[in-house]
């Protein structure tokens, strides 16, 4: 390799090295896994549900990645990068599951859908303006997702069950990490306490949406909210924080994120996430 053609070997079609960029030899994350949909499950509904859970992880992972280089300490930077990477891995498998059923690709779902085709909850879209908002939302999201995925480990769809079982181990670490920060800030100084409480109050209007369901209970487990509340309330109490009492953000004509109705923030996430792929959809590196 000469200095003026440092990328030549990356585009060599026979080389195994042409990877690490969009559209360049990423393998199917479900390669070799039996992806037959069991007879008892409606494939369309399964694809929709995997899209919802995959979109939550994809959009939230991107929002977390936007914190990179802005974290207060190197250890926190590393922690957040790892959490975002775990969620991206979960997103890839869930989108691949949906893509396999809908005869499209994981990349097409991630890079070429528009806002109203995304099925994520609105909670994951917002741009954090404060470190307290970062850890507050991460704690609530992880507590909810962990409780849900513990149930999904027994899903009638063995692929979704396997993805959930794996994710449970990761989400346990995410929830602990965020909870420890919520306690540290809430039970810290007057200033950190005030900002942590403000962060929870800001996040709270979008929490109800996490517990909405759209699909039959045989596919989408109904999560008992009290199971999540026990965890949230324990941490809030330890952190000397009040459980927010603010009204939920209204649906738009009865529709929320799960129906493809989003906040303005999602557009900014997608503009960032999809820009390279949309500029040159055929690009190969």
């Amino acid at each position, binding site marked *: 390799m000469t200095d003026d053609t440092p990328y030549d070997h990356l585009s060599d079609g026979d080389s*195994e090295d042409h*990877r690490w960029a969009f559209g360049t*030899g*990423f*393998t199917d*994350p*479900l*390669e*070799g*896994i039996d992806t037959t949909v069991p007879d008892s499950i409606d494939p369309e509904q399964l694809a929709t549900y995997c899209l919802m859970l995959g979109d939550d992880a994809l959009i939230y992972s991107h929002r977390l990645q936007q914190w990179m280089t802005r974290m207060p300490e190197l*250890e*926190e930077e*590393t*922690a957040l*990068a*790892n*959490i975002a*990477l*775990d*969620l*991206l*891995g*979960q997103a*890839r*498998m869930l989108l691949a599951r949906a893509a396999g059923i809908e005869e499209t690709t994981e990349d097409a779902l991630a890079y070429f859908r528009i806002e109203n085709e995304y099925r994520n909850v609105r909670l994951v879209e917002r741009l954090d303006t404060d470190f307290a908002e970062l850890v507050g939302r991460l704690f609530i999201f992880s507590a909810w997702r*962990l*409780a849900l995925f*513990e149930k999904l480990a027994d899903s009638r769809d*063995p*692929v979704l*069950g*396997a*993805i959930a*079982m*794996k*994710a*449970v*181990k*990761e989400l*346990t*670490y995410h*929830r*602990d*990490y965020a*909870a*420890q920060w919520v*306690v540290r800030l809430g039970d810290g100084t007057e200033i950190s306490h005030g900002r942590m409480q403000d962060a929870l109050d800001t996040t709270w209007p979008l929490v109800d949406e996490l517990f909405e369901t759209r699909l039959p209970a045989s596919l989408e487990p109904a999560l008992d909210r009290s*199971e999540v509340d026990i*965890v949230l309330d*324990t*941490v809030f109490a*330890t952190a000397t924080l009040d459980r927010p009492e603010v009204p939920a953000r209204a649906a738009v004509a009865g529709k929320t994120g799960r129906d493809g109705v989003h906040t303005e923030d999602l557009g900014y996430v997608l503009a960032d996430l999809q820009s390279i792929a949309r500029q040159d959809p055929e690009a190969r590196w």
Partner: protein
Amino acid sequence: MTTVTRAYELAATVRDPELPMLTLADLGILRDVTEHDGAVVATITPTYSGCPAMREISADLEHTLRRAGFADVRVRTRLAPPWSSDWITSDGRRKLAEAGIAPPEPAPRRSGPIPITLAARSRVTCPRCGADDTVQTAAFSSTACKSLQRCRVCDEPFEQVKAI
């Protein structure tokens, strides 16, 4: 030696790109090697969902087996049961410690909802000086599968493979 045994023994020597002191077998991510319609099929499992090394590992496996004369090689992923740090072999644990990385304690076994952890996790033995007086400084490290620790006796930082 049968073809499958030879292929397994070869596949087992491939090293993990992020923990190169360990082979795929040491790490417990090589689940099995079988023969299917004349092809050698190696099955691996990711440590974490977002493990960026899976593609690298798959390519290394394929190269190693092809170079040894196996013409038709396929690498497959298996997700269930999910990888556990308990699958790291005793050889693997020794190699980790020799490289300054503390091996994981036994993975937690739970039934019912997973309890939240607000206090630091259990102490581990310093792989450099052997002292037990260590503290976790971060639950995440250079890779998702490790945490960052510090020894309060020799004062050195070190990594530990997380117990999952």
